[in-house]
Every structure is written in structure tokens, then in C-alpha cells.
């Protein structure tokens, strides 16, 4: 009796394992991406260099996804995406004006359309992680380095305009503007070296991004990065 239960469990495990392996082997992340994602996302680069091109962008560029994201986050998120950009890919496309005041038409902002199965998600995450930026410096930020949260907050909300465009959560309270991506869960989502590089030169990644390029010392950029990649 006990023996047969073990046998059953073993057989079940075996069955599951072969099923997953079988599906994964049949899955080519590149092909899945071409079929289900390429209609919205640019995976080849380069980024648009004109205002009109940016207005027509349907979804964020992914040609440097391997530098930007953490693989485990991708695997989870691609199965049921949540909203990252409160104003959508390009805020001007979702903007309404009432009584002279602009606001975002929430209903018009759609999350990413990805609804991948677990196995598809693994394959597509692998494929995305091969898209790396050759020039980005790795190992610039040590995410375990100690930093002062109050100094980081001072930089993010008082000394520089970051909070004007980005939502962050500080002690369970969300504050900030909406024209940039929410940075509330950057700890699981983003690669610290990329965050540093994105703050250093926003226009290198997207020539027509509406984030300003601000001259900061290495020390300030490092603190801002450590602060952001500790948000969850």
C-alpha cells in the first residue's frame, strides 16, 4: 500500500517532468515572440529618433531587454502582466483635457497583452535575455552596498525632479507623477547596472524619451540606483 503510493507519486513526477520537457523542447522563444509579441514590440532596434515615431510606438522597445530586466521577473510577469506605466507607452496618446486640466484616460491605458503559459514564458524570457546592449558596463552597482534612504529620498524628491514623473512607494505610501514608469517594484524587475546607465544617459537608450539628462556625480547616481532597486 505505502509502496504503491510512492510508486504512484514517482510515476506522476515522471509524467509531469516529461510533459514539461516535451513542451519546452518544442518551444522556440524566437518563434513565439514573432507570433505573439512582434506586432507591438521592437526587438531589432534602433529606437525611433523622431517625435512622430515615438507617438506611433505601441509598446516599449525590447531590443536591450537582456540588459534591462531580471529573467525571473520576466518569466512571472509575462504570464500575467500588471501595469507599469500609469500613462501608457506614450502619455500624449492617452491624455484628455477637461476644464483646462489634463488627466490620463485610465480606461484607454492597456497593460501588456502577453498571456504566455509557464513553458512559453521560460522560452521567451531566454530569448529576450539574449538581447543585450554591447556597450553597457556590468558590475558598476553592488546592490548589497549600504546606503542612506533619507539621503536617497532627499535626492529623488527634493534636489532633483525625479518624483515629478515617477511614482515610488515610501513607507507604504505612494507618491509621484505619472509621465514615467512607476518605480514601485524595481527591485525584482530591473538590473541595477541598467538602472544606473538609464539615469546616466536616458537618450542613449531612447533618443526621444521625455526624461531629462541630468548631470549627476557617480556617488549620487549610485545612491539613486540603490534606492530604486530596493523598492518592492
Amino acid at each position, binding site marked *: 500500500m505505502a509502496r504503491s503510493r510512492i510508486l504512484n507519486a514517482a510515476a506522476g513526477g515522471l509524467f509531469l517532468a516529461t510533459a514539461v520537457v516535451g513542451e519546452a523542447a518544442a518551444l522556440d522563444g524566437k518563434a513565439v515572440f514573432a507570433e505573439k509579441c512582434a506586432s507591438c514590440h521592437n526587438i531589432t532596434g534602433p529606437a525611433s529618433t523622431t517625435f512622430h515615431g515615438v507617438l506611433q510606438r505601441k509598446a516599449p522597445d525590447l531590443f536591450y531587454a537582456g540588459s534591462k530586466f531580471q529573467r525571473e521577473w520576466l518569466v512571472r510577469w509575462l504570464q500575467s502582466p500588471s501595469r507599469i506605466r500609469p500613462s501608457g507607452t506614450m502619455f500624449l496618446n492617452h491624455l484628455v483635457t477637461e476644464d483646462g486640466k489634463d488627466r490620463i484616460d485610465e480606461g484607454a491605458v492597456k497593460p501588456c497583452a502577453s498571456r504566455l503559459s509557464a513553458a512559453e514564458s521560460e522560452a521567451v524570457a531566454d530569448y529576450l535575455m539574449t538581447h543585450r546592449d554591447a556597450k553597457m558596463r556590468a558590475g558598476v552597482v553592488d546592490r548589497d552596498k549600504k546606503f542612506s534612504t533619507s539621503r536617497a529620498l532627499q535626492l529623488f524628491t527634493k534636489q532633483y525632479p525625479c518624483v515629478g514623473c515617477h511614482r515610488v512607494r515610501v513607507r507604504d505610501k505612494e507618491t509621484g*507623477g505619472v509621465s514615467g514608469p512607476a518605480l514601485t517594484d524595481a527591485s525584482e524587475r530591473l538590473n541595477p547596472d541598467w538602472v544606473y546607465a538609464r539615469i546616466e544617459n536616458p537618450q542613449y537608450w531612447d533618443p526621444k524619451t521625455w526624461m531629462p539628462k541630468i548631470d549627476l556625480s557617480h556617488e549620487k547616481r549610485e545612491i539613486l540606483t540603490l534606492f530604486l532597486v530596493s523598492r518592492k
Partner: protein
Amino acid sequence: MNRLALSLGCIIAAAAVAMADGQTETVEDTYRLYCVQCHGTAGTGQGINQTAGGLAVSARDHTNSVEMSKLTDEEIRRAIAKGGDAVQKSELMPPWEGVLSAKEIGDLVALTRKLCKCVAAK
């Protein structure tokens, strides 16, 4: 000679990009891309970051002729290029000289004068 060829090449490349797009960028486009997010589509200071509560200090109403006529063109140019900090205003007004050329900033100064329908302080 080499340098001339190079800069000519740049000019041609830039023209090709503008042509491929079929449209050239106007100062109104520049304002929409970089300024409307805080200053609003009408320039009245009611942009999405303002109405969402992201700005602890209100974005300047560029149509307010009383307030705007207190500023010289040089002060406006300095605020756009170097940020609010550089003119003793809020640092929520970002510096744009890392992104915009001197000509683009000059055109924006002129645009804010059009929006306020006012002349520069002396």
C-alpha cells in the same frame, strides 16, 4: 576637408531622417514632448504630473501674463537650460540643456512669450 565632409554627412543624414519621417519637428512638438507632461496641453500648468499630485510646487502657468512678464528672456532661458534650481525656483523644473540645443531652447523662450502674450521684464 575631412571635417567638412563629415559635417556635411551629418547634415545630410539629419535631413534624411527628417525626410523619411515626412515631417519636421516644430517648437510646438518640442513643447508637447518635454513640457506638456507638467505644464499641460494649454501651457496653464495643469499637466498630468500636476493633476496627479506629483508636483509639490505647481508648474508655472505659461499663459499668466502677470507672472511671466516679471521674467526676463534670459531668466526663462536659464530656467529651461539649467533647471529651476539655477533661478532660485523649485528643482521640480528640470534642466534641459542635456537634451535640447541652444536653438531649441531659444525657440521655447519665444513660444512661452507667445503663450503669455506678454513682453519680457527689463
